[in-house]
């Protein structure tokens, strides 16, 4: 399998001396779904920002395939309140200078993918929290991303909406075959979604790389021993982390 992102010895320290990432090394396979968990302040979000190019690392090397297109879903829906759902999803494409026809096709497809085809002309404030997050996801998907960065995207939603969106996301991932890096603080969400779960320790190093067995993701998987064992392993890894502090 080819690699989407190869990260070598990545470190990030801010001007005030606070180190958020330390010697992070990992290879993300193309088309893989990786979840990243860890205590707050361990550099999960910084890792995404650096890998997406929003921030430069203090040291280390990142290799990606040339012309990798990326999508980014933030913790908040980050929609422009004065633009309709359609205009929000279209904005990054418009900035990139795509032609109207192509933008239209992509936006309509992306909105259909997240189940909001009929809300194109709504303004963000007319939508529920879950719908806003769907628009945000559609905006990332419309850019046909090779790599999709998601920074605790469903963290602020209620449990039921989150479970639903988790399933929708998996569905989209299987269809689009993009590489997903998913930061979350919910262990069960990480276990359910990802093929691999990276556990970060509080000092910013990569502590564990846990592979989740099984390909099917449904209610049966959630009830399976494999799911519970994996969840336990991750939780233990995180707990051990806490004791170390």
């Amino acid at each position: 399998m080819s690699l989407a992102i190869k990260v070598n010895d990545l470190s990030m320290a801010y001007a005030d001396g606070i180190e958020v990432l330390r010697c992070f090394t990992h290879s993300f396979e193309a088309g893989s779904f990786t979840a990243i968990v860890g205590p707050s302040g361990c550099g999960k979000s910084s890792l995404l920002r650096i890998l997406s190019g929003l921030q430069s690392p203090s040291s280390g090397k990142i290799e990606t395939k040339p012309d990798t297109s990326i999508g980014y879903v933030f913790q908040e829906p980050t929609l422009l309140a004065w633009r309709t759902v359609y205009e929000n999803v279209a904005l990054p494409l418009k900035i990139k200078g795509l032609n109207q026809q192509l933008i239209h096709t992509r936006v309509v497809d992306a909105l259909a993918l997240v189940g909001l085809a009929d809300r194109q002309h709504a303004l963000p404030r007319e939508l529920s929290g879950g719908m806003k997050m769907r628009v945000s996801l559609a905006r990332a998907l419309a850019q046909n991303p090779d790599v999709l960065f998601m920074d605790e995207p469903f963290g602020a939603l209620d449990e039921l909406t989150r479970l639903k969106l988790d399933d929708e996301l998996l569905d989209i991932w299987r269809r689009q075959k993009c590489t997903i890096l998913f930061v979350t603080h919910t262990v069960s969400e990480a276990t359910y979604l990802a093929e691999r779960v990276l556990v970060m320790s509080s000092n910013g190093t990569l502590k564990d790389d846990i592979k989740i067995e099984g390909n099917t993701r449904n209610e049966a998987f959630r009830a399976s021993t494999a799911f519970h064992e994996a969840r336990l392993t991750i939780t233990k890894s995180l707990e051990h982390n806490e004791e170390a502090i």
Partner: protein
Amino acid sequence: MMKFLLPLFVGSALLVFWEWIVGFLGVPIFVLPPPSQIAFALIKNFTSLMGALIVTLSITGFAYFWALVGGVSLAILFTRSRFIEMSLAPYVVTLQVTPVVAIAPLILIWVGFENTNQAMVIIAWIVAFFPILTNTLQGIRSVDGSLHQLLQLSGAKWWQILIYLELPAALPSILTGAKISGGLALIGAVVAEFVAGSGTSTGLAWRIIEAGNRLEIATMFAALTLLSILGIIIYYAHNLVEWILLRKWHESFN
């Protein structure tokens, strides 16, 4: 409905009381004329007062327009370059905190007494432009960081960030600044007319002084009434623009 009826009732009651008390106490007309006399003065001098209104309105309008253009442009410039802001900010503040009445005679001399209208616009502009600058600055600076990152990820140029994100996001603040500036432009115009003095200005403020000198207190009140109405129109016009531009998406209209 009560929102309109109540003030209307209070206003009418006050006018009736005013008319009655002036007659009852026998207050001389050159101290406090009754409302009927003011209305009469307004009708009698209608043409000349309207001419004066247009003069004041145009000074206010030009000052306001340039305050809007100058304030927003300077705010954009300041947010593009920290260097420019550091260099210019103290002087902008100096211009703001120095009482404009004190600078006004200087401006009149510089611009020349043959161009008093221009001088008056400049004076009113100095009074009006600061709130637009500060509000626009604050509006642009409070744009959510994630939204910036979002546009950055799409490879947006600085002007695309400005047009698609910063200016629309700052619009509510800009309009708040504009609303304050609209009122201040009128105050600035009045101050400018007072300073410009006799023979050169023909605006409402000058009519007030002139009528005062002749003890035509009713005419004074008539001019004052027109100034108030102008101020009220400026204020509500801004509310209307806010309603048109923001009502669909901004939280203040929820």
